[in-house]
């Protein structure tokens, strides 16, 4: 058919699946949102930290006195740095519990080589309001305090001088008891006798002779508040070697020899500052107060260490790992910038110097600008540094740094990302499955409907079904379609029934008046014998007969299928039938030459014999009408595997392509005007009979274009089920061969 073009687009399922791809915007947007959220959270935290820093710095604004505890110029002093100690110190003379860093921080005092008697090295530490001191002292003989003497300066001892909280000079002597316990006594101005007579219990320590017997280790602690807020102090080791005369033989002090000052400076976090800061500390954050010399003056809290949660399920970790792999790629795909740029790039973007963000924060804030930076300390840990300057009289005297982990945010973001991704993948998968299932079902339903709808009408356009059954109960649009098509078919069927019954109705309606006419004419002739011979009466009778036969033919053709149904079929050898038939043709068509070539073997077919005869009548009539004079009409019977073929060929005019297509249709006649008794029903009858027997018909021009051949193919007996394609194959074989 002409409209059967190759119209083929993507199938319904493909279309729906493609539409399903738009769902990919969900993870896309989620990711963008998460990135934005992360930015907001980090900004929020930065703001909060900055505010905290600002708040703390406000506390210090104008309080340069707190920092003035320290001399402005540190170079005037020999500073003694006290380490902040991480762990609890056991006073046992061993410095092992001071931590590894401590071992390198001994300060050497005494002779230049450090191997003379009374030389010592010193380690200072600070923890829990105490100043811890560890000394390694070179001393050939340890002279313990002899409790018989009231004087305390006639044995090995350590003098501490400092400025007390009340501003007065403080003097404490640490003496060594025989039990290796160190006891501290407040001293008089001459460093001879105890000022109070009682030991100061707040000072504790132990002595431990060195294993090489060339000295000892002293470890003791002094409460910081004893030293006053300025924490100046000096330390002197007094060496007494002779137990008998108990003379001081050497002393080593921490003061520089050329020094006018009496004290060393112990650089501690300023206790006042620290007290303030400690009140402000909060969980997970570290607060540092740094002076304009970039020295840490106070510290509170600690950055919460990275929480390790490896106890998750393995597949989740797997996803995490996988996610870590794809994230940079994904990030770039979604946001268009690399992950590192958006994460850490902001800090270095400030001045283009790739530097330690902490240093930068300090530098910038000491320059007077508050700043918040992200600081990636390790692969998995990231901090936010917020620094706010402390200002006094328009001068920056220090800065407050608030340092906080953004682990929480990152972890949140990561898990949210993972969830989004996982959910997206799962939901995409689910939706895809659902869409495909839906589309499949839809397509299946539509295909069913299409199949049924197209099978409702056969190749000749005749209605085979008056209604559809599939999808007729469906409530959706396909159901509507099915119902409307079914409705259409029903109406078409009604119309068809009307059309089919019309010839019969027509015959009935025409026959009665025709009968009236006919009988009237007969009566007329009877009544008036004189007009019986009239040519008008004769022609009137002929006309009546003509109309009668027309109506009869039409009705017969219309009833043909119905009456074929009532026909009883029997197995008949068509070779016998045809040979007899063709032989008789010569009798009924005198002057015309018929030739028959049989199949040489029985051609048994399940047929109604006189219908086949009727079929042959029509084909032969046709051939006789169109044959060229004095040329034979050839009838041939061929047997193939499953079909037999009757071909009737005559020389004469050929058929055009259009005629060949329509020649077997009803009411189509190509005989022209001169032959009015034919209504184009003959070959239509041929086709209907052939099709009723499970066969097919075809009209061909002869190979040399000298005539036409009409082919009728019928299934051989016992092969009815074997389909039509077999038949078409043989047809092709004939037409090409």
């Amino acid at each position, binding site marked *: 058919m002409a409209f059967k073009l190759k119209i083929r687009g993507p199938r319904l399922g493909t279309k729906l699946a493609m539409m399903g791809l738009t769902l990919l915007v969900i993870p896309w947007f989620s990711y963008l949102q998460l990135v934005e959220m992360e930015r907001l959270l980090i900004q929020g935290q930065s703001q909060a930290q900055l505010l905290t820093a600002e708040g703390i710095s406000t506390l210090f604004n104008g309080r340069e006195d707190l920092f003035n505890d320290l001399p402005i110029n540190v170079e005037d002093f020999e500073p003694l740095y006290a380490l902040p100690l991480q762990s609890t110190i056991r006073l046992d003379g061993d410095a092992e519990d001071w931590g590894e860093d401590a071992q390198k921080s001994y300060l050497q005092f005494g002779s230049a080589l450090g191997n003379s008697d009374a030389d010592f090295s010193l380690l200072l530490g600070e923890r829990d309001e105490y100043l811890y001191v560890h000394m390694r002292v070179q001393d050939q003989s340890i002279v313990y305090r002899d409790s018989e003497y009231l004087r305390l300066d006639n044995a090995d001892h350590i003098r501490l001088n400092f400025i007390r909280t009340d501003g007065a000079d403080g003097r404490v002597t640490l003496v060594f008891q025989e039990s290796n316990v160190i006891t501290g006594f407040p001293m008089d101005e001459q460093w001879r006798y105890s000022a109070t007579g009682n030991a100061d219990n707040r000072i504790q320590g132990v002595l431990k002779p060195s294993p090489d017997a060339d000295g000892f280790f002293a470890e003791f602690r002094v409460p910081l508040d004893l030293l006053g807020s300025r924490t100046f102090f000096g330390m002197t080791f007094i060496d007494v070697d002779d137990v008998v005369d108990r003379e001081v033989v050497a002393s080593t002090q921490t003061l520089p020899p050329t020094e006018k000052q009496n004290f060393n400076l112990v650089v501690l976090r300023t206790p006042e500052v620290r007290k303030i800061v400690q009140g402000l500390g909060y969980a997970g954050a570290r607060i540092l107060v740094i002076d304009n010399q970039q020295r840490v003056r106070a510290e509170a809290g600690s950055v919460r260490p990275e929480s390790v949660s490896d106890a998750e399920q393995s597949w989740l970790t797997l996803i995490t790992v996988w996610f870590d792999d794809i994230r940079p790629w994904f990030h770039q795909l979604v946001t268009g910038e690399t992950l590192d740029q958006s994460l850490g790039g902001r800090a270095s973007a400030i001045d283009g110097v790739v530097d330690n963000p902490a240093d930068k924060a300090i530098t910038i804030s000491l320059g007077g600008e508050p700043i918040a930076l992200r600081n990636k300390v390790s692969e998995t840990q990231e901090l936010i540094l917020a620094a706010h300057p402390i200002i006094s009289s328009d001068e920056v005297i220090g800065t407050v740094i608030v340092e906080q982990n953004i682990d929480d945010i990152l972890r949140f973001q990561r898990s949210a990302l993972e969830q989004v991704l996982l959910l997206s993948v799962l939901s995409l998968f689910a939706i895809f499955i659902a869409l495909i299932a839906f589309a499949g079902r839809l397509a299946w339903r539509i295909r069913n409907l299409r199949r049924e709808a197209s099978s409702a009408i056969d190749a000749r356009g005749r209605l085979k079904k008056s209604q559809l059954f599939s999808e007729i109960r469906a409530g959706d649009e396909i159901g509507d379609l099915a119902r409307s098509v079914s409705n259409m078919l029903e109406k078409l069927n009604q119309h068809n029934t009307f059309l089919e019954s019309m010839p019969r109705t027509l015959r009935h309606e025409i026959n009665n008046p025709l009968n009236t006419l006919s009988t009237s004419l007969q009566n007329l002739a009877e009544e008036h014998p004189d007009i019986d011979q009239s040519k008008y009466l004769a022609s009137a009778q002929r006309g009546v007969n003509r109309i009668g036969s027309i109506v009869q033919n039409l009705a017969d053709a219309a009833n043909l299928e119905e009456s074929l149904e009532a026909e009883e079929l029997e197995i008949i050898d068509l070779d016998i039938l045809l040979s*007899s038939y063709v032989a008789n043709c010569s009798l009924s068509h005198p002057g015309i030459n018929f030739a028959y070539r049989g199949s040489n073997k029985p051609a048994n077919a399940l047929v109604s014999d006189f219908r086949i005869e009727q079929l042959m009548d029509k084909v032969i009539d046709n051939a006789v009408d169109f044959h060229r004079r004095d040329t034979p009409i050839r009838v041939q019977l061929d047997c193939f595997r499953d079909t037999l073929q009757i071909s009737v060929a005559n020389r004469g005019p050929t058929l055009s392509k259009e005629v060949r297509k329509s020649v077997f249709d009803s009411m189509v006649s190509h005989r022209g005007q001169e032959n009015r008794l034919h209504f184009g029903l003959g070959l239509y009858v041929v086709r209907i009979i052939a099709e009723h027997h499970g066969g097919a018909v075809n009209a061909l021009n002869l190979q040399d274009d000298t005539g036409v051949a009409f082919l009728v193919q019928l299934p051989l007996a016992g092969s009815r089920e074997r389909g039509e394609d077999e038949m078409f194959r043989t047809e092709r074989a004939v037409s090409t061969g």
Partner: protein
Amino acid sequence: MAKNIVIVEDDPDQRSNYMDAISKKGYAVRAFGSREEALGGFDEALPDLAILDIILGEEVDAGFQLCRELLTRAPNLPVIFLTERINEIDKISGLRLGAWDYLPKPISLDYLAERISSLLRINEVRSDQDRKESSSEKNIGFLALDQDALLVAWRDERIDLSGTEFRMLAKLVRMPGHAVSYETLMNATMQSLVTNNTINTHMRNIRKKFEKIDSKFSCIKSEYGFGYRWLDQ
């Protein structure tokens, strides 16, 4: 005394045409336009022969019903149906209503008259109980044919054939073994507008009636493209 003939035909023109034609042949004719009227007429007096149109007004089977009614009252009453369709021939053939014939429309009044006289005569012959072996009786093999009484027997068993069928069979067996052309058979039907198909339908019906009493019956042979042939078994 003139034979009493009833015509039942719903179309008044045709009815009067039949009446005129038949009256002229010397019969007493009564005509009715519907089944009810006809039944009323039968109550008054039963006719010697009835001519029935099958379709009366809206009633498609009215002719058959009337025929049945008549035959219960007078089993041997000859009936002629006026039909329109070939498939009605089958229907009539299947009814086995007794002595009857039919004529398809458009009707030839001559044929109608001939049928009437033929059926009336047959009825007379059949009702003549003491009838001797008729000279019109003919035997061909197992077939016995009584032309006058329109009776057929096969192996001494009677077969009911309609008038048309009988005439066709008689033509077929006139020269056993010789093919009889469709044309000859057509003439024998005494109908106008007869096609090969009509002949085939009649022949099939005749064959069936024979096969009913003798399943091995195969005397009627098709002579494809020409006609039929009677073969002695």
